[in-house]
């Protein structure tokens, strides 16, 4: 089975059992890998009664067919389960080296069920898996956990995915960290891992991924290395990381400010990725086989932080402009705290943003917060609230439930900045109207990784061959809805191949790489079809979990026009945009249910 190891490790924590299962070849052929393949597996294992934090919620770590090969950008892995934050399909993915190492250790993925009686960690070394007591690791932050496990195993190159305090405490904003400070951050899957009493997974191996046509594959991947040398988006990411987008984002109205209610604010430019690189960057970091190295390792002298992973653009927005904090060092420190405790910076920031807004409106008072005064621009309070959240202490126990729960508790659900209970990332859909479709239809709730209209309409993608031309970001039309849906299919394919979305070699080279790896003989249009099938399986699963067409919406907050900035006056025309997207996906206009031949894949 070329492109795959052909093995899934099954772990039943309740029974302390480990066994190998042959990868379902039909599933892999039809749903590729990563979140698509996980959705196909979990379609049979999840239903409305599955408790996201119960023993019956399966937690699936999965790679894609190119992961661990010489393909640049193929270093990611996905984690999937029913989300405790949203109640629907949960997926997150992360770069680094964990995904490739899992494959070198002999597995395409690890499917975990049950709940251990006591905290454990899982080792997968050269095809041999074992569970170990994790009593002394419980309570450690993500960095200490990784360091101690590497020391225990006596191998500094062991790759580890783990949770921090937030995951242990079942905080619904908890992610899973790997390779120091990389995160499968979203949808609260760290809490699922915590609910299973599983602290960490350590992987190490020396195996190889079997390829259908190794020579042709190498020719393609060599060609890609040259491509990224002079590519402008790649050069920008190398120099300034994702943070390099911040000033342009501010100009275009894409950067949320003051909890999505201000379109322009001059101090926001002080969060510039250029300044970050010039003043606080220690070094670039890269994932497996990546030639861009967009990762940031920074420092914050004011806060005595000598080594911090990030901040990313999303961190600068969520823990910066959204909260009216424009001090780079403060944002670096807030990001570091989230990393230490294992929290999703987006969900944490957007939840804190709502807390500031509620306080401003008098809907939250010190009587509700244990005496805390929560105001925009108060970095010290943000540091404190992050820690309280991770520990579930005081008002932190409320924040631990996320933005939607906080809005409901305050009696103002209309102030929630979530789609299907997942906090909205730092791309305002009023700036790129196609993002309204991406968020509303994203299988995991508001997510910018399910379709990056900001990249497409900025010209940063390279997808004309599959009908994805850069367009007018303020176009509000049926056709824009179609384009957004097509892009969502494309990125769902990426998330199933578990490729990094920052490397866009174009359809031809990607197709050549997939075919040389797997021998599938796909054509360009097949890639979009595969992507649509993956979106559809996730949608069917979400319908099975209780979603309906009524869930395809944006929060009220993002449907109000802003008065100033690059998005002034623009709001998405949801009926027109969604109609286009439904048509592109082939969904019933009334029910939103996927039509066509999908059921043959189930």
């Amino acid at each position, binding site marked *: 089975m070329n492109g795959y190891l052909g093995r899934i490790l099954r772990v039943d924590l309740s029974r302390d059992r480990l066994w190998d299962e042959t990868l379902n070849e039909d599933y892999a052929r039809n749903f590729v890998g990563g979140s698509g393949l996980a959705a196909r597996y979990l379609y049979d294992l999840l239903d409305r009664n599955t408790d996201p934090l119960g023993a019956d919620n399966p937690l699936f770590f999965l790679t894609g067919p190119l992961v661990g090969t010489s393909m640049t950008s193929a270093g990611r892995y996905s984690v999937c389960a029913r989300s405790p934050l949203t109640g629907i399909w949960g997926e997150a993915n992360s770069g680094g080296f964990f995904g490739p190492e899992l494959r070198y250790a002999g597995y395409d993925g690890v499917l975990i069920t049950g709940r251990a009686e006591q905290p454990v960690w899982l080792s997968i070394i050269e095809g041999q898996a074992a569970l170990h007591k994790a009593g002394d690791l419980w309570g450690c932050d993500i960095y200490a956990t990784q360091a101690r496990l590497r020391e225990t195993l006596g191998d500094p190159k062991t790759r580890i995915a783990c949770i921090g305090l937030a995951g242990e405490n079942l905080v619904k904003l908890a992610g899973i960290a790997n390779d120091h400070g990389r995160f499968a951050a979203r949808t609260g899957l760290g809490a699922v891992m915590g609910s299973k009493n599983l602290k960490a997974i350590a992987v190490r191996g020396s195996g190889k991924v079997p390829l259908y046509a190794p020579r042709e594959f190498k020719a393609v991947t060599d060609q890609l290395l040259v491509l990224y040398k002079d590519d402008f988006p790649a050069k*920008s990411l190398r120099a300034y990381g994702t943070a390099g987008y911040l000033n342009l984002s501010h100009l275009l109205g894409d950067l949320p400010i003051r909890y999505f209610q201000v379109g322009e604010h001059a101090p926001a430019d002080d969060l510039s990725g250029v300044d970050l*690189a010039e003043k606080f960057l220690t070094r670039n970091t890269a994932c497996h086989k990546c030639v861009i190295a967009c990762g940031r390792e920074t420092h914050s002298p004011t806060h005595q932080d000598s080594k911090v992973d990030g901040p990313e653009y999303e961190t600068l927005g969520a823990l910066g402009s959204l909260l009216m904090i424009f001090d780079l060092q403060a944002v670096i420190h807030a990001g570091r705290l989230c990393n230490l405790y294992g929290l999703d910076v987006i969900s944490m920031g957007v939840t804190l943003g709502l807390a500031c807004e509620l306080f401003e409106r008098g809907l939250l008072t010190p009587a509700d917060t244990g005496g805390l005064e929560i105001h925009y621009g108060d970095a010290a309070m943000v540091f404190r609230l992050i820690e309280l959240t991770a520990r579930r202490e005081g008002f932190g126990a409320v924040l631990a439930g996320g933005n939607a729960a906080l809005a409901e508790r305050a009696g103002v659900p209309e102030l929630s900045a979530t789609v299907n209970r997942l906090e909205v990332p730092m791309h305002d859909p009023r700036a790129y109207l196609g993002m309204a479709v991406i968020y509303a239809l994203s299988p995991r709730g508001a997510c910018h990784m399910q379709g990056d209209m900001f990249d497409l*309409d900025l010209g940063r993608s390279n997808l004309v061959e599959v009908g994805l031309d850069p367009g007018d970001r303020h176009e509000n039309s049926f056709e824009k809805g179609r384009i957004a849906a097509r892009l969502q299919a494309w990125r769902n394919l990426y998330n199933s191949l578990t490729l990094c979305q920052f490397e866009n070699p174009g359809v031809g080279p990607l197709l050549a790489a997939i075919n040389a790896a797997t021998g599938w003989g796909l054509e360009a249009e097949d890639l979009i079809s595969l992507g649509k099938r993956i979106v559809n399986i996730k949608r069917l699963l979400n319908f099975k979990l209780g979603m309906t067409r009524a869930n395809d919406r944006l929060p009220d907050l993002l449907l109000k026009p802003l008065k100033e900035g690059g998005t002034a006056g623009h709001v998405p025309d949801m009926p027109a945009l969604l109609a286009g997207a439904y048509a592109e996906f082939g969904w019933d206009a009334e029910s939103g249910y996927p039509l066509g031949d999908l059921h043959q894949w189930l």
Partner: protein
Amino acid sequence: MAIKFPSAEWIQELSAQLNASEAYAQAAATWEGDNIFIILPDDDYPATTYLYINLQRGKASDARLLRSLDEQKALFTTSAPFNTWRRVLEGRLDPIQGIFSGKLKLVGSMAQIQRTPKATYEMVKVASRIDTDFGS
């Protein structure tokens, strides 16, 4: 009367209009760098042409046509075929979209460009207001 693009008159008009624009002065207040715009031949334009303009802290100066790149060095060069420039000046191609997609090939300080994207937008906005003769 429309001014032919590309030409010495056109780049001088751009310089004059930039100096008259308060919005540009504000947006480019921190911008420091001279530019050479390279217009490459295509089906509608026969020869490579170089337009030079010095842009310093919101003000423009020394706008002229160059005979070659040997005549003047600049911190930034931006090159594209004639019809791509036309699309930018007619508002049919967003300049940042053009740069990211490689349609406009930009060489120069990335820090300057990424920190002050508004300067680029305002310059193009001013250029778009020039009554331009593209020859067809």
